[in-house]
């Protein structure tokens, strides 16, 4: 059997940690090979080694049977390796075309970039692989899905034969995920080979041919996907059984906590993003907002939390009007918020994890008194939270930046939950996390519900919505178009509703 890429016994160390310890990965031409492992297991590191961003301490890399050294991404490109990074490597103010050709620009004889030629080439590529993009649009104006297609085009433009995808679906909507799966299949059909990193077992089962599992930097083994199942993969990865079915009792909703009436919100361009939205949320229930990205979810959350001004309508919390109050007021009246973008909103990355734990409460007793911080109290509290929420960090004095995504998320959840808010908003709380961490977070949300809090869950992942919610509100075009019970619907129906095909109220059928 001929391998296009062989990474043999790779070892990569970082100060204080062995990220890759004797890992072997063999990729055949024309296959989709999944790479599975918990957060921090060493997947990205391994791929960065292959892409020439890191140099391994030990091990060999063979390409098409020939041993190679890959000192930098240029060499990787020349060897036909392309990588779609977990965090997109796109220059925001540049156009799609500029991003794709960057570093390999076609020139006219006068030394000018030959944009026409470039655009033509991109059009050809995008037609051939079904990667729809607008070559003249700026990156900052296009959707995440299109950004990802740009990343793929970048690798194809450079003639990549092997494509590495690092958690490509973490940022995509279900529709976009389906499209991506299609794209991957067509890439393979065209003779490309793919390494896919993902935490979603379903996706692996769906498209991958093989799956290599790593745990804490060590290779556990490779399985033929056809010969295995999700449960086996999960337990190989975590080293224990994983409970996929979320355990929960039926909800016992009580008084109304959140009531939104006829809400309108406009974005910067003065376009209505929320158009007369109505929503009720009661204590002791989890309402999941299902919807495709861009249908007003972000605006809804920002309006409730005071980060954006509403145009009209009212938002009542425990029957008190909190419309357009400042974020501090709103938090104090009982709202907790796990933000979608944890780096931008959730944490001050340059603060220590200890300092981050009091981001919402630093001005209150006992963390400060008369404007003077009580560091002892803050650190005592932070230590406590870290143990309670299993945040894995060297110490509370470690900068938040140095923590892995899952641990950052746990810290935020701990901070928000511990304030016992009447309303807890969780936006994409499990994005990019491994199954173990997801399980933990789902449990926490349900615990909160059982303590009598109202939980608003926004997620693009239908599975998560279906598993965790007591009630599902489908959002489309700035409105709630359906209100359903999870046990009375299925993913098909939700998908249709999310695409705006019909409306439905709970209990109608």
């Amino acid at each position, binding site marked *: 059997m001929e391998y296009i890429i062989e990474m043999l016994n790779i070892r990569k160390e970082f100060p204080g940690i062995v990220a890759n310890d004797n890992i072997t990965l063999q990729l055949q031409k024309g296959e989709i090979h999944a790479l599975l492992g918990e957060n921090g297991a060493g997947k990205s590191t391994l791929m*960065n080694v292959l*892409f020439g961003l890191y140099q391994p301490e030990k091990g060999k890399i063979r390409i098409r049977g020939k041993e190679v050294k890959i000192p*930098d991404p240029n060499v990787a*490109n020349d060897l036909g390796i392309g990588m779609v990074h977990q965090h997109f*490597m796109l*220059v*925001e103010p540049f156009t799609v075309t500029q991003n794709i050709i960057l*570093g390999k620009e076609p020139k006219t004889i006068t030394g000018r970039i030959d944009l026409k030629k470039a655009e033509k080439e991109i059009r050809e590529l995008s037609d051939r692989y079904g990667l729809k993009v607008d070559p003249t649009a700026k990156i900052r104006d296009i959707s995440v899905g299109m950004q990802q297609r740009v990343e793929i085009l*970048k690798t194809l433009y450079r003639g990549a034969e092997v494509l590495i995808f690092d958690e490509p679906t973490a940022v995509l909507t279900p529709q976009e995920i389906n499209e991506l799966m299609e794209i991957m299949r067509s890439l393979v059909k065209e003779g490309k080979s793919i390494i896919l990193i993902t935490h979603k077992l379903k996706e692996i089962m769906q498209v991958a041919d093989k799956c290599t599992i790593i745990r804490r930097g060590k290779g556990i083994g490779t399985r033929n996907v056809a010969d295995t199942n999700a449960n086996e993969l999960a337990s190989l990865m975590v080293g224990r059984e994983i409970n996929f079915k979320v355990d929960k009792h039926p909800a016992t909703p009580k008084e109304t906590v959140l009531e939104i009436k006829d809400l309108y919100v406009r974005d910067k361009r003065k376009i209505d993003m929320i158009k007369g939205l109505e929503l009720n949320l009661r204590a002791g229930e989890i309402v999941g907002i299902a919807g495709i990205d861009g249908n007003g979810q972000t605006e809804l959350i920002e309006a409730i939390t005071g980060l954006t001004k509403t145009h009209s309508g009212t938002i009542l919390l425990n029957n008190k009007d909190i419309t357009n109050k400042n974020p501090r007021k709103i938090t104090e009246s009982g709202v907790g918020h796990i933000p979608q973008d944890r780096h931008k909103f959730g944490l001050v990355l340059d603060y220590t994890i200890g300092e981050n734990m009091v981001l919402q409460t630093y001005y209150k007793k006992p963390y400060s008194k008369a404007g003077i911080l009580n560091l002892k109290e803050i650190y005592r509290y932070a230590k406590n939270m870290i143990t309670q929420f299993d945040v894995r960090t060297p110490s509370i004095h470690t900068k938040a930046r140095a923590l892995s995504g899952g641990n950052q998320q746990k810290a935020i959840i701990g901070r928000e939950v511990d304030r016992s808010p009447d309303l807890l908003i969780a936006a994409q709380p499990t994005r990019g996390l491994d199954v173990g961490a997801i399980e933990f977070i789902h449990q926490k949300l349900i615990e909160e519900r059982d303590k009598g809090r109202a939980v608003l869950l926004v997620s693009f992942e239908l599975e998560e919505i279906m598993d965790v919610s007591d009630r599902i509100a489908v959002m489309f075009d700035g409105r709630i178009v359906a209100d359903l019970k999870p046990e009375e619907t299925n993913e098909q129906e939700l998908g249709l509703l999310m695409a705006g095909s019909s409306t439905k109220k709970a209990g109608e059928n």
Partner: protein
Amino acid sequence: MIDVLQSIIPTALFFSAPLIFTALGGVFSERSGVVNIGLEGLMVMGAFVGIVFNLTFADALGGWTPWISIIVATFVGAIFSIIHAVASVSFRADQVVSGVAINFLALGLGVYLTKQWYGKGQTEMVSQPFFSNDIPFLSDIPIIGPMFFKGVYTTSYIAILFAVIAWYILYKTPFGLRLRSVGEHPMAADTNGINVYKMRYIAVIISGALGGLGGSVFALTIASNFSHSTIVGQGFISLAAVIFGKWHPLGALGAALFFGLAQSLSVVSSSVPFLASVPDIFLLIAPYVLTILALAGFIGRADAPKANGVPYIKGTR
């Protein structure tokens, strides 16, 4: 009105030229992600070299002296700026700190060497400075001619030309695309096979060259000699022009010209009837106040290149 324009435009042109060169240098450096507070120092170096070279070789080179002087100053400015590049690109120094050091170093070294070589704190006046001239034919056009083409310095037009060239390079060529990408998202550039360090070195060296050029043009069109007070704040004004111009070569050009106009307007005003009654102090601070008002009024928010000021360390994000 035309009278006023005819007297302020030529002065604005020579006043602005050194600022334009230097600001363009700032644009290159900051577009690549290296903050350059050291523009002032680069100008000092340029002025120093321009004057010293001119004084030394005036006899040998005759009419070519000023031209060769500014070329040499450009060259020395480029070399001098390597210090900033090494510190801020290779040594990952805080770029603001390194720039401040450049300012101290240039002035200290310039005056120190002047004292060593000339035995006094300031040089003689050069005998071969730049002279203004009338541009044939164009200067005969009514109204426009006297405004733009009579008694102008070739260096002023070179400055404007450089701004256009800088725009072309930054926005139309592969080199420019790469340079800007390095200032926005160095890691993206790196994964695309662009050598981030090399690009930043080149950009800083270009800024050194242009800063040196700006300083020497100032010295050879305006000051005529070198002392500790030859360059006092022009570099900072150039830095302001970089930001005012939103890190765009043509914006920087516009900002520098705006500043030159405001400056010469404040001088000319005393001879304009309806402004003559304005107390001098208001005319004196007018250029600075106008700049602030322009920014607050209609220029507004400017977004720096995203990675500006952040040392790039391979393998981190």
